[in-house]
């Protein structure tokens, strides 16, 4: 992004291509029609391009870009006259609201989970993906419920960081 702001058109193109992929996933989770998704991807890319001067290099890029994506999404709902309230997204709903049957998403989740220590991975899989209760998952892992809760909480925090630190 810093290179884009300096006028490096190759870097700018690469940035937009990568961002397009992330945006497609972001909007696909929140909208139904594929046309709508692609529309918003394009609108957001255009906005990122036009407003690139408002990115401050001393901050991280992802929150900036996704704030624009979120704005474009809200703007679309507003135009349609619908009433929605979008919670500020967190990695929690990236994991929780995804349909784990989708191959691409499953791969992403697996990649992300692989960053955790093995025991936490298994616990997270049980609780967040397989739908075990905290008690059941703790029993399966052979630890106390409190320990399981702490481990899940820590894992979520860690994943959240991973998701948002991933520099685009």
């Amino acid at each position, binding site marked *: 992004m810093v290179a884009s702001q300096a006028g490096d058109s190759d870097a700018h193109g690469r940035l937009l291509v990568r961002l397009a992929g992330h945006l497609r996933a972001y909007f696909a989770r929140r909208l139904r029609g594929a046309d709508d998704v692609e529309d918003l991807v394009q609108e957001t890319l255009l906005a990122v*391009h036009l*407003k690139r001067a408002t990115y401050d290099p001393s901050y991280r890029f992802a929150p900036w870009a996704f704030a624009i994506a979120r704005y474009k999404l809200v703007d679309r709902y507003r135009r349609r006259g619908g009433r929605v309230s979008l919670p500020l997204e967190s990695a929690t709903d990236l994991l929780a609201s995804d349909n784990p049957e989708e191959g691409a998403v499953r791969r992403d989740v697996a990649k992300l989970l692989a960053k955790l220590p093995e025991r936490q991975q298994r616990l997270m899989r049980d609780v967040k993906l397989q739908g075990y209760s905290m008690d059941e998952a703790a029993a399966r892992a052979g630890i106390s419920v409190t320990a399981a809760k702490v481990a899940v909480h820590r894992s979520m925090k860690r994943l959240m960081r991973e998701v948002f630190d991933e520099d685009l």
Partner: protein
Amino acid sequence: MKTSELIGALASAGGEPSPPRRPLARIAPAAIAGVVLALAALSLWLGMQPLAAAIRADWFWMKAAYCLALAVSGLLILLPSLRPGGRISAVGLAALAMALAGIAVMAGQEWVSAPATLWPKLWLGDSWDLCPWRILLLAAPIYALLIGGARPLAPTRLGLAGAAAGLMAGGLAGAVYGFYCQEHTAPFVALWYSLGIGLSAALGALVGARLLRW
């Protein structure tokens, strides 16, 4: 249009440098121009009080300090709101709270130390029914310039940005109005100045939600 084509077009347009833009660099000139405009409007419309005497009075500075504190907290909240992903400024909110607490304490002290017969005068002065509206009117041109300065940026929470711009415009307008207004009690300022500036912030939020779209 395919997304890949769009990216190609944007990438070739990306050869133009677009260096980081500081919100302050756009807001500060707008604010200064707005204050000059509001001062000019005030002197044509109501004229000014004898300033040589006024600037020796504590109450003149009390009003200016209160209004400017509100304007500064508006500015502090406005700046980060003009960038996607910007947070609400905790410093700005703290400044706002301190300004409100400060004037409330001053008003309270004046109120309890005054005899009850003076209370209506203390709270209502001579111009309670005009003051908030005049401040609101003076805030309008400042607000318009602030919004003009903010539009090329990218606020993603339009209501918040609009309210902050309204607060800043209202605070500056209050300070400008102080050049005319001879009310000199803290309760009056705490009530009617705050009302005018608060109206400016509230309207600013409503109007900003429309004007700041991009």
